[in-house]
């Protein structure tokens, strides 16, 4: 404890201890007022950007374009397959362009799609066309291969 430490022979230590023991003067009113203003300014400095960001986010959420894209996750359980791709109205029915990624036999990919109706299918191991067992069946298949359909709402 500072109060109990004896003043020793070391002049530096003695000077330091004497300074630490010196009573602190209470701040003057002006100084105290200045401190309060500084603390308030610090709070203000941090609050305004946060409030502005929150307000902008709220405005964006309220007025975001109704045709903005939404994330849509496609998944197919195919543990024995080496490769699964997704093809449909959203990629010109390119059977090789959109590979899914496998995790414990579940193949998935997430696309951002605008509101609308999309027909699609999975292509397994480069050759086998597979409808989505969890998806709706498209009523408008014209080529003899069952196709799935997904509707993305606003």
């Amino acid at each position: 404890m500072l109060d109990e430490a004896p003043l020793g022979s070391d002049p530096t230590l003695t000077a330091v201890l004497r300074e630490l023991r010196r009573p602190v003067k209470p701040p003057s009113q002006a100084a105290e007022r200045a401190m309060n203003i500084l603390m308030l300014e610090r709070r203000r400095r941090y609050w305004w950007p946060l409030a502005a960001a929150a307000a902008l986010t709220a405005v964006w959420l309220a007025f975001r374009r109704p045709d903005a894209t939404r994330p849509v996750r496609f998944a197919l359980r195919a543990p024995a397959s080496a490769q699964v791709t997704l093809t449909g109205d959203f990629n010109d029915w390119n059977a090789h362009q959109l590979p899914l990624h496998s995790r414990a036999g579940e193949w998935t990919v997430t696309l951002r799609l605008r509101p609308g109706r999309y027909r699609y299918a999975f292509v397994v191991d480069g050759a086998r066309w597979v409808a989505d067992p969890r998806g709706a069946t498209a009523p408008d298949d014209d080529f003899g291969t069952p196709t799935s359909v997904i509707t993305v709402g606003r």
Partner: protein
Amino acid sequence: MLGTATARLLAAQEPRLLARLPAGLATATQRLIDSAASEGLPVEPLIQKALEGESKGADSARIVRAVQALLERLRVARRSLGGATEPELVAAAAALRAGASPATLGALRALRPNQTLVVPLSVLADIIAAGMPPERAWNSVREMASTGAGDAAFLALRDRLTNAPSTSELLPPPARRPPSDAPPASRPDRP
């Protein structure tokens, strides 16, 4: 909605058809697309239909028939809906293909004149495709549309009607598809 001038420009320059379809098929398809563009109908769904056929290995005649049929459905959809966006026309064409009547489309527009019809039409197509008689499917959708329901409610309705545990009580067995006039290029599978 695609402006006529823009549609014409796109139709005249469709490189995807040229890149993927045989020359004769590309020409025949382009003619149909040009017709659509001149009528102010969306061309992208027609392009996608042709590309789908090519990707699935269908023969040229079948692809042309499919594009032609879709074009006709788009025409009927627009006549029935009046003004409509491209996604609405696509969904309406699907509903017509499933078995909905043109009058149904018009009635739905009358119920929701200022709201998009994409999801209600899409749901109508899906529940008819799942086996529900068109009239009954329309009653379900009309009831929901009358309440001003949003997209989420319609999609929940579809999920309820197409995935119900007692499906046999809600839906009759799906009608048998007419036999196709050409074998599919690859056999479809469901895992």
